[in-house]
């Protein structure tokens, strides 16, 4: 037994040595796939220029496998595109991006974050799609004093003061370029009660952290504005069959339904909604913006007609920055950017501007953090800045309605709640 193990270990060493020799030779020629770069020497190299500063290393932790793979791909596209148009340099520092796959798993996410800290020694970290992963790595990032820009996960606690830091809490080192679930749920609740004149709403959300947060924030906004919640229903994440739920929605009398679903759930929900003729029966679909984002809308098309949702961006948003962003993205990839690409793009933009403010010096953490706190720019979503208190963005929330225009279902802007910021507790 022991002898066998010894032999195996020897042969393992041999192959590893062989592998190292081969890979160091190959590294010069091969352009390795980003997710498959296990050591720093394998990372993509940057063209030499006249007098570049020291290389800036960014660790991007994104899902490239499992259910959120397409979100990760989208965010990677935006990151690569931003760097490409900047000649791969930010504040005169050539940039290396180390991509790692979080695989939608908090344990994997924590391991990869530790790798960024210990072995890659990245200058800053970005990414993370799912809230549980962001919560899981929060303490490690805080302890390592690593600047981290969250580019998707919207869990409220990540940028808030909470009792005993449960389930998470804000950190000096953590910024967020996306949103908090409060921001996409509370304003639309208030807007419904005060502007749209809706009296009663029934909530139907995905039964997990984010869906429940969204329902709670909508409820508090709506009731504060004088509205009444008549009841609620929850579906487990990834429910196969939505017909039973929609049948229940139809069996009650409140016509306005507020929902939080995304991805496959949103598609299944909207299809079940159409099958039961809900719109014809006078019911109105409303929700957080992800219910009718591009990934869903391009599949359900006119079935989502009339759905009202809130989000801080829409591909159709009419401003110069958005047109430029959408055009550039479309030219590079022949597809429309989605909200995830936008979040990654704005994250890169914030980093770029902060780096310029400190002349590329990331060694003084406090100065770099102060620079990020003071970043202000015109994003494709409108004016963007971080709330100095929470490090969550201050941004406009758009109320959007799905309309069919020349045969295409699109989110059209019907209202706006200006400068929404997270309350921070």
């Amino acid at each position, binding site marked *: 037994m022991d002898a066998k193990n010894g032999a195996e270990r020897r042969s393992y060493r041999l192959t590893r040595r062989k592998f190292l020799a081969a890979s160091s030779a190959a590294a010069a020629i091969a352009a390795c796939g980003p997710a498959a770069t296990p050591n720093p020497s394998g990372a993509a190299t940057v063209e030499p220029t006249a007098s570049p500063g020291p290389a800036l290393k960014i660790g991007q932790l994104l899902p490239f496998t*499992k*259910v959120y*793979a*397409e979100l990760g*791909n989208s965010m990677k596209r935006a990151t690569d595109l931003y760097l490409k148009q900047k000649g791969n340099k930010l504040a005169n520092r050539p940039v290396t991006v180390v991509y790692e796959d979080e695989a939608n798993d908090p344990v994997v996410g924590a391991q990869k974050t530790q790798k960024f800290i210990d072995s890659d020694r990245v200058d800053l970290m970005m990414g993370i799609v799912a809230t549980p992963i962001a919560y899981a790595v929060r303490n490690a990032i805080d302890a390592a004093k690593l600047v981290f820009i969250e580019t998707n996960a919207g869990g409220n606690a990540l940028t808030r003061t909470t009792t005993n830091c449960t389930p998470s809490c804000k950190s000096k080192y953590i910024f967020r370029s996306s949103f908090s679930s409060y921001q996409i749920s509370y304003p639309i609740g208030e807007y419904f009660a005060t502007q749209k004149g809706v009296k009663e709403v029934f909530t139907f959300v995905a*039964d997990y952290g984010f869906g429940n947060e969204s329902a709670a924030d909508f409820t508090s906004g709506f009731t504060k504005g004088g509205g009444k919640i008549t009841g609620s*229903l*929850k*579906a*487990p994440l*990834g*429910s*196969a*069959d939505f*017909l*039973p*739920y929609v*049948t*229940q929605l*139809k*069996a009650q009398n409140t016509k306005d339904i507020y929902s939080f679903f995304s*991805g*496959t759930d949103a*598609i*299944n929900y909207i*299809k079940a909604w159409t*099958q*039961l*003729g809900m719109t*014809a*029966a006078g019911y109105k679909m409303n929700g957080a913006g992800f219910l009718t984002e591009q*990934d*869903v809308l391009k*599949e*359900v098309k006119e079935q989502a007609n009339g759905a009202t949702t809130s989000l801080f961006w829409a591909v159709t948003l009419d401003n110069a920055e958005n047109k430029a962003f959408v055009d550039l993205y479309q030219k590079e990839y022949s597809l429309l950017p989605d909200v995830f690409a936008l979040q990654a793009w704005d994250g890169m933009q914030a980093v770029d501007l902060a780096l310029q403010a400190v002349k590329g010096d990331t060694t003084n953490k406090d100065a770099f953090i102060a620079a990020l706190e003071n970043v202000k720019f015109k994003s494709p979503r409108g004016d963007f800045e971080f709330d100095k208190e929470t490090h969550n963005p201050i941004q406009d929330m758009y109320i959007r309605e799905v309309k069919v225009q020349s045969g295409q279902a699109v989110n059209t802007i019907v209202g706006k709640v200006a400068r929404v910021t997270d309350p921070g507790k």
Partner: protein
Amino acid sequence: MTPETAVVQALNGISFGALLFILAAGLSLIFGMMDVVNLAHGAFYMLGAYITLTVVQRTGQFWLALLLAPPLIGALGLVMEPLLLRRLRGRHLDQVLLTIGVSLVIADLVGLTWGREIRSVPFPAGLDHAISILGGDYPVYRLFVIAFGVVLAVILAIVHRRTRVGALIRAGVQDAPMLAALGVDIDRLFAVTFAIGAALAGLAGVIAAPVFGIYPGMDVDYLIYSLVVVVVGGLGTLSGAVAGSALIGPIDTFGKVLFPQFALALIFAVMALVLLLRPTGLLGRIRIAR
């Protein structure tokens, strides 16, 4: 719950059960014959849904997909059995591991071919409207799924009981070595059985495609459902698959409505209960260890 809602929910449950039957029948057939829990069953199902997506995108013909996908996936099964499973015959656990490997390969190839975005297929023309039942609208496609499931069950029962292939399958399930000794080409029989099982999974994928989203990971989600159905109903028998899906479909539906907090756990609780009371499943045979 009003009586009208209860009736509609019952229809929802039966139509979900009918879909589960189409999915589970193949799994049960393969297990009954070959003693292999084919964990690639979900991957075959997924492949059926994605082939439907392509056929509908190219031609707009859902019915063409229904004709095309099951034979294609059946052919895959016909190749896979002699190429892979046959080499491990008699080593049941190794065969199960092998099917896990195949499912991972198929799932990743599907991701490479079709991308990892979520997709959806529209309802076929003619079945995309709703009809009035008890004063409420009910989608015709769901009624079609129920009818399809029932017809398929009847056809499978007739094949099973009245045809030569059915007789061979029944004999093979009883005692494959004896059947071989009697001069039946058991290799061919196993390959054909595996192909039929795979084709049934593909068929379920086609039927389910318009109802549920098509996405990476759907293979595992529905594999679990089909495993629950065959374990509850009894592994290896057609009537077991019928009983399991007739029970699990409505329980899942009414569970979602009546105990929403408990919705995901309910079918597993039922499975645990059935296993405690009847370890072989509701209509399972007592197997003689071979």
